[in-house]
């Protein structure tokens, strides 16, 4: 299998830098997501790895070998597209056989490999169907099978679930992830859906404006976002203003933390960046880290302005007496109604000190 190393990769269109000197090392068998809003350069990056776009600068190495000058058809990649891109004039088997024919695989081996892969994507009985006789989910599974049957070095997926409905999308996330683990193939997955990136990936690469904002495990990205932009893109977040207090923190709270004064009192907050005492900073506070209690039980005081019930959780909007608005998510077993006054508690480890946006 294959280790991929991207070094200072750049793509310019006219004068604009769509991808601006990014470097990523992808381990053998790793599942990596490129996550970002549209126009952040994630698809261009994927196309450069595939060979559909020429790199303006930088290197792409598969197992140490630079492939920048290797045409797409010789890179030995498996690619899955958003619109499936199945050949409409070929049956499922013919679609799968295409790549094997290009590799001049003998017929008996070809058929056994196709049967094996179709089995893997649970489409055993669909060999002779045409793509237009399949549902969207089935088509995407055929596309996956077609990419995998050639046993490529790397699997590349470009928003493969974007055209599916919500329920199917969730099923397919798990399906693709399980399949990838079983095959053990190095995978690069492009998406703008943070939930998708987080549930599927070993590591997530968050991109903005052609640059990498943060690379890390999903929990890293979510719990310890590099900056405001990342925090806001990856899930819901409350921003709490604070001021850095001087003095060192001792005991269990330990080093690497800063003391910050905010509406929630004085908290010892994790951070990656150093700030001088007195500096104005922004803390992130995830909605599900906040605990609501009935009024006058300590903590910050506020009033429920809105309540949205969505089954597994309830969303609250809280107006704090200090003027700030909070977004809170709790399990439905707490019954607090719109208009109620509440005490808002936030544990110290729910906060994270954000670095300034680059």
């Amino acid at each position, binding site marked *: 299998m294959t280790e991929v190393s991207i070094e200072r990769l750049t793509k310019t269109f006219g004068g604009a830098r769509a991808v601006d000197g990014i470097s990523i090392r992808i381990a053998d068998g790793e599942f990596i997501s490129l996550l970002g809003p549209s126009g952040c350069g994630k698809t261009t990056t994927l196309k450069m790895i595939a060979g559909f776009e020429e790199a303006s600068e930088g290197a792409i190495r598969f197992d140490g070998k630079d492939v920048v000058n290797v*045409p*797409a058809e010789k890179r030995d990649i498996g*690619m899955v*597209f958003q*619109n499936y*891109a199945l050949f409409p004039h070929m049956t499922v088997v013919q679609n799968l056989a295409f790549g094997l024919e290009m590799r001049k695989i003998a017929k008996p081996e070809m058929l056994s490999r196709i049967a094996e892969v179709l089995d893997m994507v649970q489409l055993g009985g669909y060999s002779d169907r045409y793509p*237009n006789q399949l549902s969207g989910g089935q088509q995407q599974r055929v596309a996956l099978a077609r990419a995998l049957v*050639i046993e490529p070095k790397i699997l590349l997926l470009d928003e493969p679930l974007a055209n599916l409905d919500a329920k199917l999308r969730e099923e397919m996330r798990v399906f693709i992830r399980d399949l990838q683990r079983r095959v053990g193939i190095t995978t690069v997955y492009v998406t703008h859906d943070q939930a998708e990136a987080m549930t599927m990936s070993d590591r997530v690469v968050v991109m903005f404006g052609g640059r990498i904002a943060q690379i890390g495990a999903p929990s890293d990205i979510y719990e310890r976002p590099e900056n405001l932009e990342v925090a806001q893109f990856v899930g819901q977040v409350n921003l709490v203003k604070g001021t850095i207090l001087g003095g060192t923190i001792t005991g269990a709270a330990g080093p690497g933390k800063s003391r910050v004064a905010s509406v929630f009192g004085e908290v010892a907050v994790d951070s990656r960046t150093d700030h001088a005492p007195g500096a104005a900073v922004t803390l992130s506070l995830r909605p599900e880290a906040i605990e609501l209690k009935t009024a006058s039980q300590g903590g910050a005081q506020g009033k429920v302005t809105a309540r949205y019930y969505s089954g597994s959780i309830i969303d609250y909007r809280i107006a704090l007496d200090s003027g700030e608005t909070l977004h809170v998510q709790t399990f439905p077993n707490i019954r607090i109604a719109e208009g109620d006054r509440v005490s808002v508690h936030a544990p110290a480890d729910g906060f994270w000190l954000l670095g300034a946006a680059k």
Partner: protein
Amino acid sequence: MKRPVLTLYCLLVYAFLLAPILVVVGASFNAGNFLTFPPQGLSLRWYVTFFHNDVFMRAIRTSLWVAAMATVISGTIGTMAALYYVQHAGRWKEAVRIAMLAPLLLPEVLTAIALLFFVYAVGIGTTTMIGMVAGHVLITLPFVFINVSASLESFDPSWDMAARSLGADRLTRFRRIMLPLIKPGVIGGALFAFIISFDTFTISFMLKGIGTSTLPIQLFDYLRTNFTPEAAAVSTVSIVLTLVVVIVSEKVLGLRIHRF
């Protein structure tokens, strides 16, 4: 039949347009000596006369040959032009389109005269059929171009990318992926080319070789001095020939469009 008046109106328009053709077909089975309708008795005698008429037979062979040549050449050039237009023309796209459609916009007689001057100026002349075939290619090209570029517009570039990722080189991708998927457009365009070439008068009239003649010209010549049902028989045969070409290509090559 929700709107009886509209339906009736449409039927009348079609009847008005198609009736003359039916009349010609009917008149061709005339037993009498003049082109009249209704026919005076039924007979195939004018077909016999037609098939024994060397001049007409030579003309129909010329027409078929020129139409076949024009179809192949214009099918090839038109497809290549459409490929360039859709995939590579970039900011020249509109200019390319107008240039390709120009033969449709110019009066055919003008094109014909210009071509006539041209073939003499470059020394080709009209002793061979080169000039006439070139003229037919010119006027049929827009039809191939329009049909093929329409089917190329619905060709999803990711099909090509998928084939590339699977290891197919340029030629294989064209042969195995693109051509089968744009085939209805190519065949449709080629059919148009064949029918238009077979039917055209002006271009052939100007550019025909000395002593040769296509079927429409021969028919026109014939009608200047004769008014027998043989003319109707000629027309009927050319209608049937056209229909046969359409039906055979539909059955053999497939005009049906893949539904995606």
